[in-house]
């Protein structure tokens, strides 16, 4: 997941649409939870959950198999987008939805970046 920070902060789309974005996203991939902290449009840290109580703004959680389909180079219908996955019951989206919707373009770019880099996540 450390690669995600590097890839995101070098990605032209993420830099463009991340302007002024600040939030903490909890990404749940099966039993693994990751806290992705974004500060002023850059990923400041990506940390695996370690048992400590932590706060986050919004969370996207789904089965590892769902995220694996999402991260295929050409994902199948209903697995190709976070909103599609939520609408079709593959993942949940919860928490402070104002934060989620306010940052939606950047969040979506961040989540799809592993498609372009193998062995990430």
């Amino acid at each position, binding site marked *: 997941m450390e690669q995600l920070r590097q890839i995101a902060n070098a990605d032209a789309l993420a830099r463009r*649409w991340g302007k002024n974005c600040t939030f903490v996203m909890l990404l749940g991939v099966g039993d693994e939870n990751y806290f992705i902290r974004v500060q002023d449009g850059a990923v400041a840290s990506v940390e695996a959950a370690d048992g400590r109580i932590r706060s986050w703004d919004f969370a996207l959680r789904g089965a590892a198999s769902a995220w694996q389909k999402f991260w295929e180079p*050409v*994902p199948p*219908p*209903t697995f*190709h*987008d*976070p*909103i*599609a996955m*939520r*609408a*079709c019951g593959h993942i949940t989206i919860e928490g402070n*939805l*104002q934060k989620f*919707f*306010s940052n*939606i*373009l950047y969040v*979506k770019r961040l989540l799809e970046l592993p498609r372009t880099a193998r062995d990430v996540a």
Partner: protein
Amino acid sequence: MSGAKIEPVVGRYMTLEVWGRPHRIYWEEAGAGVPLLCLHTAGSDGRQYRALLNDGDITRDFRVIAFDMPWHGKSSPPAGWEVEDYTLTTQKYLELILAVSSALDLDAPVVMGCSIGGRVVLHLARRHPDAVRCVIGLQSAGMANPYYDTTWLYRPDVHGAHVCAGMVSGLIAPTTPSDQRWETLWHYMQGGPGVFEGDLHFYTVEGDIMDHIDEIDTARCPVYMLTGEYDFSCSPEMSKITAEAIPGAKLQIMKGLGHFPMSEDHESFKAYLMPVLDDIRG
């Protein structure tokens, strides 16, 4: 010589009496022959049909016309809009389409609409079958399956351009060329405050036609339907349920396309549209 590429598309304005008062309506057109009146999606505008308007294979036999609905694109809201909420209904939508068709003196046009346009052409086929030659529903279904609270599209604490584009970006197929994807999103980013949400009132709340879907007579008004496989707002399954309820309707599922076939990937869309247009032309 400048080297500029001048397109054959011409844009004009008309002042049209519709919805009880004058509205300034913008439309673009190209070509000659069978009138093909094109309806854009909720929260966007007629620019979605830019590639169609520029395609000589289509404009050779069809007069392609794409207008911006009031409050959309270059069609301004009416005087007094600043104290009103915009809300689209079935009745208003039908009145608008018939008024534009009449104003342009179109003789039984083919009406092709996408999303909300794909829904309203079903109402058109049911209630005004003799006013049109046939209808083409893109991303067309008789019903909707709301998957989010549309009030998120218009709030002072969420940027409308970001959230409108962000909510529709997933309706575009992942294989879509980047330039066409981002142009499609740009149209959404330029929508007026509350307009996308106002259109969705028709799409998700008021405009369901399933209780009357079997009243469509395809002998009087043929119904063609084209649905992209990546659309989860109007899914292939929803189009299939709709088509099966309309005796004689012809549905084709489009591979590698989503909710905006005409603007997200014209070449892929064209492969599915041309057989329909050939069928109509005879």
